């Protein structure tokens, strides 16, 4: 029954709870020493892939991430959540900063073909750049149909029924496999994989203890409700049974050069004080005064 194979892209981003600081030279935001984690929408994509695997509709889930060595932590999180193996497309840190959706889409498209997957599952966008392009570009490069902003995914034989969250409400479409799907917030609620375990325990000598940190809060907790963390180091042990293959973009014949360069990154303008008026007449007068009407 389960003959489908899924490729899930996972991006390592600055953790949603971190207060972002712009670098003094305006070249970007401060990332050194800053807490990073898996992009929340990528978590949702991984969760959906694992659920399909648990329903025996998907036989293998491959997690892929592009970037420097720290990406392997993100891949390990995916493995601990239930992905079967990982692929780390190694890109040195400086070059990784210039990686955009088009470059990643090229990598994913090549990998999708190489690994002969039937389904590419991605988050709808990353919370650092908000691009919302990678899934669409990947589908375009592969010439595969796409179901973006998915809030529900159902397999119907060789077709995928995708319910999409759009401005007007919900749109349901049917895609022929193979296909690309991008996950929206309400697709599912991801299971936990506590961070210390994912950090990859080294082999420890007998008798030494392991310090476990408390699991951290999640995006939209008010919306999603508190989630129960799963048990401790069992996951890193299971995750260790799963391989992470390390390759370079060049191995896939992918060119990572970008025609986009960042000009500057600045803080949004400080919010200035508003003006209070007493009556409607005052309001209209004020609006005329500043040329709004």
């Amino acid at each position, binding site marked *: 029954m389960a003959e489908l194979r899924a490729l899930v892209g996972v991006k390592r981003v600055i953790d949603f709870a971190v207060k972002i600081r712009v670098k003094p030279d305006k070249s970007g935001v401060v990332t050194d020493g800053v807490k990073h984690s898996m992009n929340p929408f990528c978590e949702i994509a991984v969760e959906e892939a694992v659920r399909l695997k648990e329903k025996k509709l998907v*036989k*293998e889930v491959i997690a892929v991430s592009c970037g420097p060595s720290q990406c392997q932590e993100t891949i390990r999180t995916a493995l601990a959540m239930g992905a079967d193996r990982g692929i780390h497309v190694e890109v040195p840190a400086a070059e990784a900063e210039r990686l955009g959706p088009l470059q990643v889409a090229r990598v994913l498209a090549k990998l999708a073909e190489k690994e002969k997957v039937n389904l590419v599952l991605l988050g709808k966008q990353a919370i650092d750049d908000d691009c919302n392009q990678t899934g669409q570009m990947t589908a375009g490069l592969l010439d595969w149909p796409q179901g973006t902003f998915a809030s529900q995914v159902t397999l119907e034989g060789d077709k995928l029924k995708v319910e999409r969250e759009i401005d007007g409400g919900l749109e349901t479409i049917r895609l022929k496999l193979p296909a690309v799907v991008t996950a929206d917030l309400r697709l599912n609620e991801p299971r936990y*994989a506590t961070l210390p375990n994912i950090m990859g325990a080294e082999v420890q000598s007998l*008798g030494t203890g392991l310090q476990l940190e408390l699991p951290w809060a999640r995006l939209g907790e008010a919306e999603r409700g508190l989630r129960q963390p799963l048990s401790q180091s*069992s996951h890193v042990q*299971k995750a*260790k049974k799963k*391989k992470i293959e390390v390759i370079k973009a060049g191995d896939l014949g992918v060119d990572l050069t970008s025609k986009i360069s960042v000009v500057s990154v600045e803080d949004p303008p400080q919010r200035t004080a508003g003006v209070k008026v007493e009556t409607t007449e005052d309001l209209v007068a004020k609006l005329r005064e500043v040329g709004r009407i």
Partner: protein
Amino acid sequence: MATLEVGNRTIGFLLDTGITYSVLTSFPADVCLVVGVDGNPRYLLDNPDVVRGRSVLDIGSGCGATAIAAKMSGASRILANDIDPIAGLAITLNCELNKLDPVPILTRNILNLEQDKWELVVLGDMFYDEDLADSLHQWLKNCFWTYGTRVLIGDPGRPQFSGHNIQHQLHKVVEYSLPEPTRQENNGLTTSTVWDFRP
């Protein structure tokens, strides 16, 4: 003390190392139990005839669940093999916890040693890596053809296993649904199957 529910039996377990790397929490408080995804322990406990009076080799013993199940079901001779020395410790402790005499343990890579005659060889979740799968396949074929050994393989549905050539030589014995705590400890896995290897 953490327990492992196997069928309708409860076996006390201290520690399951799982694989090559393991993390130990400080003894004796708060032990970490990882419940296995191998159906062999349950199959042997439910079907003691399979091992009663027979010699059993458990390859990739981990916490020793299968070896202990074999002992409980009356195997005459048992060897628990795992290259992880911590697994060796876990197996000994788990024998003690289950009030059994310690089973002999071998921590060398059995694939590199001369083959011994065994009536039954069991493997649990050992086909997660293609290269290891190939080596094991070869070794098991030799064992089968040389000694007429019965080989039972337990697997929770690893893609590397279901995609391996060995599939053509397997006969399904039984499929178990993994209990909820096991599913939570092993994301993505829902069942475990015991296979009979007949090349």
